[in-house]
């Protein structure tokens, strides 16, 4: 996710590393047909992370990834004295849409890492994650391409179902249901068991049956799925 790190402008080393930073954050949904549930944007200490690829997801990560509920992760971050913003887009972030928010870590100089997560719909337990990048201390504008992960907590059956942890299927709020199918027989039954880069949805071209309720020409993606542009001010 850091491979597109670009310092568009550079200034003198600021005192931000000592006194915190003012961050303006722009989050763009790059996908053609996928939606993101309410986002969680947080600056937090460097010895913490919301998840690690290859490891089992926490219960609160699972709650976010399967149903879009960020309350558990937000509470975890509050316990770490993180600087967080919940749901900056005020609901679903549509394909191609951009939302902006700001974080100010003045007075919280230990919150040097930035994480942003949100569930990807339609998917069973897919989510986008900017995972603990170190916030640049030099004033400037920085761009990050963000990938989709699979929480590994639910089988990717690709059938409309529920969003509560342990409930099979994916939740389908109005705009997601409008472009999804019904009557799929199910794609996968295995739960992977660990967080990993999402292998993408399979989908099919039959909105009234087939194996999947996801459309193979609308809902697939190639990473990256989100672009985050951070502007660090003095």
């Amino acid at each position, binding site marked *: 996710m850091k491979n597109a790190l670009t310092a568009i402008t550079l200034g003198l080393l600021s005192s931000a590393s000592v006194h915190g930073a003012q961050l303006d954050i722009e989050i763009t949904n790059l996908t053609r047909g996928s939606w993101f549930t309410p986002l969680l944007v947080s600056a937090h200490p460097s010895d913490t992370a919301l998840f690690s690829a290859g490891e089992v997801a926490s219960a609160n990560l699972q709650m976010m990834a399967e149903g879009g509920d960020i309350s558990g992760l937000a509470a975890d971050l509050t316990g770490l004295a993180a600087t967080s913003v919940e749901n900056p887009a005020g609901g679903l972030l549509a*394909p191609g849409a951009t939302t902006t928010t700001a974080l100010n870590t003045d007075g919280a100089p230990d919150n040097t890492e930035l994480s942003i997560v949100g569930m990807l719909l339609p998917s069973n337990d897919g989510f986008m994650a900017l995972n603990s990048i170190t916030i640049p201390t030099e004033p400037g504008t920085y761009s990050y391409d963000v990938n989709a992960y699979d929480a590994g907590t639910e089988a990717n059956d690709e059938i409309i179902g529920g969003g509560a942890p342990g409930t099979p299927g994916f939740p389908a709020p109005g705009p997601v249901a409008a472009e999804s199918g019904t009557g799929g027989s199910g794609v996968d039954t295995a739960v992977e068991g660990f967080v990993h880069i999402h292998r993408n949805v399979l989908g099919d071209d039959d909105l009234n049956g087939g194996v999947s309720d996801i459309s193979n020409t609308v809902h697939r*993606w190639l990473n990256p799925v989100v*672009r985050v542009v951070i502007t660090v001010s003095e």
Partner: protein
Amino acid sequence: MKNLIAISLLFTLVACDNSSSSRRPTPAPEPDPTLRYELTVTNLTAAQPFSPAAVLIHDQAVTLFEIGNAASAGLELLAESGDNSQLLQETTTVTSVSAEQPLAPGASETLDIAFDSSDTSGLRLSFVSMLVNTNDAITAVMNIDVDTMTAGESRSFTSISYDSGTEANTETDLTIPGPAGGGEGFNAARDDIRDQVTAHPGVVGVADGLEDSALTAMHRWDNPVARVTLTRIQ
């Protein structure tokens, strides 16, 4: 009398001429220095020829497209047919270059961009090309800051694929202009799910469940699809 007047006038004129010849001649304006860049493009895909590349030098206020916004008419023509002429015409540029030939999968080409300018401040370079075995996929690197590059300096980028959002991704042979389809290129109808540029989801192909697709597994790709290296020569 008349002759005398004429002669005195002649003397006056000669005298004027003599006195003016003692002044320094009006200096010709200094020619602007020639700036020269080379852009090397490598097609990283397996079976997606790129349409002739368009390279544009433009002011920082110009951008070829933005995620979430509708494609311009020139971008639509390029994305659906590979014809970059209208995009080059409609965009305000300092200079622009078009490759003469498509770029085969696995192949590289180097384009020369030279222009005279005494002021490079705010200049940007953008590159865009169509993946021709698709409905409306393009790849682009936009707004490279050439202003701050010094002679001999090189910068490398990888580019992802974008969907212009102007044509539904049916993948039928009638709608794919490249060799895999041989069908129609440009069609003014905008019949995609949303009239906006996004990242491209990739193609599905007949082997992966899109019954009417003219594409095979070979035509699929993953990001990045191109590597672009810009070098300032002088």
